[in-house]
Structures are given as structure tokens and as C-alpha cells.
């Protein structure tokens, strides 16, 4: 399989505004410290790490919501590292993002149908309203939900609207950033199963950012473990769980509270 994404020696730093002097530039804080990896077409890649590990920043650099400081990001062979917005526009339809908090990423004043149709009209696709309702069906919601507003939906339903908006554009790649972390387990199970079916049916490539390895295990083919802006482990999902190499990976694995009463858990600190 050819690679859909190639990321080479990616660095990203942002100004640290908490340390900015009154005059002059703020010192820069290095968030991504040289990441290199590829994502083959059709792969489901899990990206895991603690808070501050840079996993969300990496995701945002990949879909060019942030511009990398150095290194290269290639999408389907095209260098998008420093491309301007005009140059990115034709590609934007092909890589989509689903955000963590559907309450703040869905416009509360618009109906579900309009929310899903908006990017379709933006990209000049024909028949946005009909496509929007089709997308609703694909995430297992009735077409009548098109008339509802986000506040009339449950958390899991809202997150499915986020998925519908992303897949309506028929993208090649989806970046899902912590999309189940605010959900109850039942909605989480549902969202994961919908996502898995869509990946299979649409031949999607997916990067799934999460802090929760037990969720990643259910969904992903391969896992990148990030710690303090570096990749500390890059392994197939089964290999990672069977035989974790990095100390940080073992620490993450051991911190998962398994629903199984066992007294030794606290002893393994």
C-alpha cells in the first residue's frame, strides 16, 4: 500500500505567552521534537500519550490547522508543510477532522442538516442537503434528525453528527481527536463501532488520537506512543499490547483500571 501521509522530522514550536516580556517576542516552546512516520492507505493509526505529550498538536499539524516549524508533511505525495490556505483548499475536502467536544464544534444556532451541509456547499459539491441526510443515515441516525438542533441531542448523538459532517465530504483521511473521551461507555461503544464500519466500507484512513489505550486496542491497526513531543514507540497494535518496549508505554498500560477487582493493582506503581 502506498503511503497517504508521510511525516518527516516534524518540529513545531509555539510562542509561550505566559513568559512573554512586555516588549519583544515571547520565547518559543518546542512541542513536537522531530517526529517521523508514515500512514499507509487504509490504516487505522492510534496516537496515544498523556496530556502535554503533543498528540493534539501533531494532529492539527497534519490537517494543517497549525503550520509546522520545520520538517515535512506529505499528503498523498504532495508537500503541504507550508502551503498557504489557497493552495490547501482543493486538498481540504480530502482530509477531515472530528473534534473532541461536539458541543463547541457544532453551531448551536443551526440545524443538524445545515451543520452537515455547510462544508459540502463550501467545497461546491452538488446537492448538499440530500448528501447531508445520507450522511446522517450512515452514522445510524434517522433523517428526521436533520431538523433538530445540537442541544436536542445526547452526547453520543452529537458526536455522530461530527462524524457525519466529516464523512459527508467523502474524504480519504479522517483525524479523530479524543472523540469518545467525554462519552458514557454505552455511547462510546456505539461511536467506535460506527467508526469501524465506516473505515471498512469507505476505505478510509484514520488517525485516532486518544489518551485511552483500551479504546485504541479495540479500533487500531498500529499505535504511536507520544511522550513529551517525541515518538517513544511505534508498533503494531497486538505487538504493543503483548510486548510493550518503551518504559512509558508500560506505565500507560499499567495505569488502565481494568474492570476486574484485583488487589495487586495499586502495588504495581
Amino acid at each position: 500500500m502506498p503511503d497517504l501521509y508521510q511525516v518527516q522530522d516534524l518540529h513545531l514550536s509555539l510562542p509561550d505567552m505566559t513568559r512573554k516580556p512586555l516588549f519583544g517576542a515571547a520565547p518559543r516552546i518546542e512541542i513536537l521534537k522531530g517526529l517521523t512516520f508514515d500512514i499507509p492507505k487504509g490504516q487505522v493509526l492510534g496516537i496515544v500519550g498523556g496530556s502535554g505529550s503533543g498528540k493534539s498538536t501533531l494532529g492539527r499539524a497534519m490537517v494543517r490547522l497549525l503550520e509546522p516549524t520545520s520538517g515535512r508533511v506529505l499528503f498523498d505525495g504532495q508537500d503541504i508543510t507550508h502551503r498557504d490556505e489557497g493552495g490547501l483548499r482543493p486538498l481540504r475536502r480530502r482530509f477531515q477532522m472530528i473534534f473532541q467536544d461536539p458541543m463547541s464544534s457544532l453551531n448551536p444556532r443551526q440545524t443538524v442538516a445545515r451543520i452537515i451541509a455547510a462544508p459540502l456547499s463550501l467545497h461546491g459539491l452538488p446537492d448538499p442537503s440530500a448528501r447531508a441526510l445520507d450522511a446522517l443515515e450512515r452514522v445510524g441516525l434517522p433523517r428526521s434528525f436533520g431538523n433538530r438542533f445540537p442541544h436536542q441531542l445526547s452526547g453520543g448523538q452529537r458526536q455522530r453528527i461530527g462524524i457525519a459532517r466529516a464523512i459527508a465530504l467523502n474524504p480519504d483521511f479522517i483525524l479523530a481527536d479524543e472523540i469518545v473521551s467525554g462519552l458514557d461507555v454505552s455511547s462510546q461503544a456505539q461511536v467506535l463501532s460506527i467508526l469501524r464500519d465506516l473505515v471498512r466500507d469507505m476505505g478510509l484512513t484514520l488517525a485516532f488520537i486518544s489518551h485511552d489505550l483500551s479504546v485504541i486496542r479495540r479500533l487500531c491497526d498500529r499505535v504511536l506512543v507520544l511522550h513529551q513531543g517525541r515518538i517513544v514507540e511505534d508498533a503494531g497494535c497486538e505487538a504493543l499490547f503483548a510486548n510493550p518496549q518503551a518504559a512509558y508505554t508500560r506505565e500507560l498500560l499499567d495505569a488502565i483500571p481494568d474492570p476486574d477487582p484485583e488487589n495487586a493493582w495499586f502495588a504495581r506503581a
Partner: protein
Amino acid sequence: MSFLKIRDLSVVLRGTRHRLLRNVSLDVAATEVMGLVGESGAGKSMIGKALLGILPRSAQVVSGTIELEGVDLLTLPPRQRRTLIGQRAALIPQDPLTALNPSRRIRPQITDRLVDILGWDRARANTRAEEILNEVQIAAPDRVLGSYPHELSGGMRQRILIASAFAAEPRLIVADEPTTALDVTVQKQILKLIHEMQALHGTALLFVTHDLGVVAKICQRLTVLYGGLVVEEADVRAFFRGPAHAYSRALLAATPRHSDPEADLTPVPEPVIAAVQEQVLAADRSWSHA
């Protein structure tokens, strides 16, 4: 006599007949760790809040009793009730950022309660604050007590809130999703700390969480709630061998299990939800006839 005894507690949305808690009864023994679990909106936090007398204005207790060591909290005059709760009970809140006042140093945020509610003098309260920070393994208590919340990490702030809850040696602590906002690795450290502090002080603990994994690790018994109704109350070991109620079974089946990675996660099936909702409606019917 049980240490904490809640009987037929009903809480409504103020001014309506809509119940948020539906005849909740539960018992907690002294030094016991009881988990309160359920999905969002199940009313699990509401129980702790009713008990501590910190229900939001929009909620109102309409019936039932909450007995702490034989005293019914709901029939006490407000001032007496506040003093009693302040002496006997404490809260470990969910969000360490909003639970601390950002414009005050840590020291008074721990000691004010000891001085104002328990009537200690400042010097004694200050000594106790240092002592208790030592106990939660904070290395430089003096520096931390003089800091503002924003100068400390999330894990550190949660440690301070735990220390603060244990400072007055309460007999009962309500921990309301204390690790939900934290990283998994920090979550484990904090759970371990709560576990050790609880064992050391012999405090009864009401642990509110949506995470059955956390319940398995820290609780001895648990109560499963749905729509403000208790659907199951069980010993933790027995529960994880096989829950009695269909809804609890479904909830457990939706929770990722490390030891069984191949098992598919299944959402709570529609018929199970329909059945438990019917149970809620039935409870409401007998309530409105009473």
C-alpha cells in the same frame, strides 16, 4: 446501626414533579468504600450533594431521610446541620481547577474551614495543614501552602483537595469523580493516594464515578443507578463475576476490558434501556399514588 443510612430519598427539579432521585435507599458501613455508578444524568452526584447539603438551587429534597451516625440530617435546623456536616463529612470535588479559588493562596483555602466551622485557632489549623500535606506526599508543604493554584499542576491540586478533605478527620468523604479530569498515569497515583488515606484514617468513602474500572479497583461495594433509581446494589467481587440486573450487565459489557481484548464492546441494547425505563416509570406511578 449503619453509619450512613439513606431511606427513600427523592429529589425533584424545584417547582415540578420531575424526580432526579427516585426513592433512593442505601447503607454505608463505617470505613466502607461504596461506589456510586451510572451514566450521565443517573443521579450519582446528586446523592452526594443531597447528603452534604450542597444541592443546586434548582433541586429540592421532597422526601426521605439521610441519617449519619443516627442523626437525620434533613430534620436538623440549617445552622446545626452545616456544623454537623462540616465536622463529620467532606468532599473531594471533580475539577481541581474550579474547586480552588484562583486569587487566594493554598494555605487559607485549607485552614479557613478548620477555623470557621470547627472553631480551631489559626496556629493549630496551620500546623494541621502542613501535617496533612506531608501525609499526601507533597515534598515542600511550606512552599505549596504559599502558592497560588495556577502555580501548581493538576495532579498537585488534586492532592491538595484530598489533603483538605482529610484535614478535619471526617468520618465520611464524598469523592465526586475525583480523577475524571486527570491523565491515566496521574489518575492511578491519585486513586492510590485516596485508597491509602482512606485505609489509614478509616474513613467511610462514597465514591462517585462513571468508570466501572475505577470501582473495581477502589470500592468494596457499589450501587448502580439509572434515571435516579437504584437498579442494583452489590458486593464488588460478586458484581464483577456477574451483575444481577440486566442493565448492569449491559453497562459492564460496554466497558473495555483489558483481559478480554477481542470481546466486542456492545452499547446498552434498546430492550434493556426500555425495560429499565419502564422500571423508572413504575416507580413514579407508585410514588404519585402515595
